[in-house]
């Protein structure tokens, strides 16, 4: 990091905080604070929704995912546009008509207070934990590669977000997200162009894609019905639709983004914007990762990208074995580079096939060396994280980008962390105020609730920093948060679908079904019956089925079960 990098990084982050605080100053009442004055236009909503979903880990981890496993991850997003249409068609008209502050508020209108409170609390637990991880995930990676203090980094990210989110509420979140998205896309686009520029002269973009394809990185679609394969066309279309419906339709951190819209049409247009652009955006980020892979076909790369894991093994009795593997990899790299250059200039298909077979054999040896390196790391430190996909892109940035651009790309990563965290804190503060505090303490002044909203937002910010600071005490916490999300999301989505489409089913049947479903889902997860993404589908289906059965077999037709 040179002075210019620090200048760009600090300047960008301070600009976002000051701009957000200035542009959103003067919220006089709780409606302005929590709904941003209800004057957002569709492009602001669309960018805000995208910025909320795209956290720092999206920009650190996704290119690494493509580097190791190719473009198949894009299938995960195929259900998202379908979910956007359903939300525009069903969810938004109802939320808009009832003028709700939170998604859970609607459930009291449709069912009763206890169903509203249950879903609000499920959201607070899950999202409160997730907000901490949104801060922790980039902090642990940046502290490992840059040597920065992890706790300090957690506090800095958290405090910067708290300043403008507490001060300006929803408006501050959406105006800063526009700037953050501009920085994110600008930085990623410059990085992409530079990677292409760094490739050898003979390697055009098309040839780079050919090289990637020959190495299996362009296998975008998988139509197989393999239940254990996480990313297939079918899991993307079915599981992805359910997951996106839950996330965008019932998670307050997203619902609050479009509830700030000027009109129902603006809200719908904002989500359509997201539905049209999300897949190309993810495709582009994955493509950056594939180009990083092509770049490393012609340039030296480490055996393992996580520097702290490498340090562990180099300071252990396995150091000599690891160094031996690295030496073998260095030799292989020279051979791979020669063969890739041969492949790129050949026109004869027969000769190309021969060279391709050689390349695949060499890459297979390289993969084997990477596997062996992970085994050594595990022996040196059984607790070390051997999956290094989160470290691939940051390694590329720090070792190859010119001065100034390193600062810009670090600003991209921290901006993404801040934009997601801001939405989460804003939603946590809103839900606590509206669904728990105001609902149970009615009759106070508007100013009182405004101050309460700010207080709860700050409190959740402090909790998020606290979770981020203790997160490294747990193993696989990031996956744990995703699993917790999948355990609750399906059930909550099912409750909302019952509310929208099954007027026959009444409140008590839904509440009991939700409790039973939650127990079953936790049990299914406990016995590891299926990949956790499918819990969303099963949870939603179960709660609908059980509520329907309870309603049919009981019952007091007016209010639900006689229990």
């Amino acid at each position, binding site marked *: 990091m040179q002075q210019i990098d620090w200048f760009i990084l600090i300047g960008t982050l301070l600009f976002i905080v000051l701009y957000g605080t200035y542009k959103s100053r003067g919220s006089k009442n709780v409606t302005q604070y929590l709904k941003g004055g209800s004057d957002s236009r569709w492009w602001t909503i669309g960018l805000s929704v995208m910025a909320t979903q795209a956290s720092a880990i999206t920009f650190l981890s996704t290119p690494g995912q493509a580097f190791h496993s190719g473009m198949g991850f894009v299938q995960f997003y*195929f259900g998202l546009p379908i979910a956007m249409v359903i939300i525009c068609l069903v969810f938004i008209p109802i939320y808009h008509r009832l003028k709700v502050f939170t998604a859970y508020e609607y459930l009291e209108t449709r069912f009763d207070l206890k169903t509203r409170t249950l879903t609000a609390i499920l959201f607070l637990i899950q999202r409160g934990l997730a907000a901490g991880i949104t801060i922790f995930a980039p902090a642990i990676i940046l502290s490992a590669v840059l040597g920065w203090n992890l706790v300090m980094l957690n506090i800095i990210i958290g405090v910067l977000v708290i300043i403008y989110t507490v001060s300006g509420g929803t408006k501050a979140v959406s105006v800063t997200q526009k700037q953050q998205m501009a920085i994110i896309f600008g930085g990623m686009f410059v990085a992409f162009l530079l990677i292409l520029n760094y490739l050898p002269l003979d390697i055009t973009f098309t040839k780079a894609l050919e090289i990637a394809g020959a190495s299996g990185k362009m296998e975008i*679609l998988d139509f197989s019905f393999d239940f254990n394969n996480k990313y297939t066309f079918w899991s993307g279309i079915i599981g992805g639709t359910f997951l996106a419906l839950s996330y965008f339709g019932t998670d307050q951190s997203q619902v609050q983004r479009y509830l700030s819209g000027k009109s129902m049409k603006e809200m719908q247009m904002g989500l359509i914007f997201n539905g*049209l652009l999300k897949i190309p955006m993810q495709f582009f980020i994955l493509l950056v990762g594939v180009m990083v892979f092509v770049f490393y076909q012609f340039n030296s790369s480490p055996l393992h990208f996580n520097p702290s894991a490498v340090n562990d093994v180099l300071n252990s009795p396995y150091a000599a074995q690891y160094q031996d593997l690295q030496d073998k990899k260095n030799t292989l790299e020279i051979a791979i580079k020669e063969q890739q250059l041969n492949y790129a200039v050949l026109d004869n298909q027969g000769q190309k096939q021969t060279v391709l077979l050689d390349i695949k054999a060499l890459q297979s040896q390289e993969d084997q060396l990477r596997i062996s390196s992970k085994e050594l790391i595990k022996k040196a430190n059984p607790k070390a994280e051997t999956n290094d996909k989160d470290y691939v892109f940051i390694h590329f940035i720090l070792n190859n980008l010119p001065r100034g651009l390193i600062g810009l790309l670090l600003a991209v990563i921290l901006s993404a962390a801040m934009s997601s965290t801001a939405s989460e804190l804003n939603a946590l503060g809103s839900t606590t105020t509206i669904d728990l505090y105001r609902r149970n303490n009615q009759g106070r002044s508007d100013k009182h609730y405004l101050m309460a909203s700010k207080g709860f937002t700050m409190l959740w910010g402090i909790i998020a920093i606290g979770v981020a600071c203790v997160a490294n005490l747990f193993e696989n916490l990031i996956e744990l948060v995703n699993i917790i999300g999948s355990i609750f999301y399906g059930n909550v989505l099912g409750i909302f679908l019952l509310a929208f489409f099954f007027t026959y089913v009444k409140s008590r049947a839904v509440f009991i079904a939700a409790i039973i479903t939650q127990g079953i889902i936790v049990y299914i997860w406990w016995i590891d019956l299926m990949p956790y993404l499918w819990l969303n589908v099963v949870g939603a289906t179960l709660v609908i089925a059980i509520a329907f059965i309870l309603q049919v077999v009981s019952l007091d037709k007016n209010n639900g079960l006689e229990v």
Partner: protein
Amino acid sequence: MEEQETTVSKQKFVWTQKFTLVLIVNAIYVVLFYLLMKHFV
């Protein structure tokens, strides 16, 4: 409660061309990815 349920049941779901466009574009993405994959794999 009954009044609220009546309101919910009267909810009309208005399909517009924008929604059709989103689904068509999604299908186009899949076809493009398929062609891209066939070309480069």
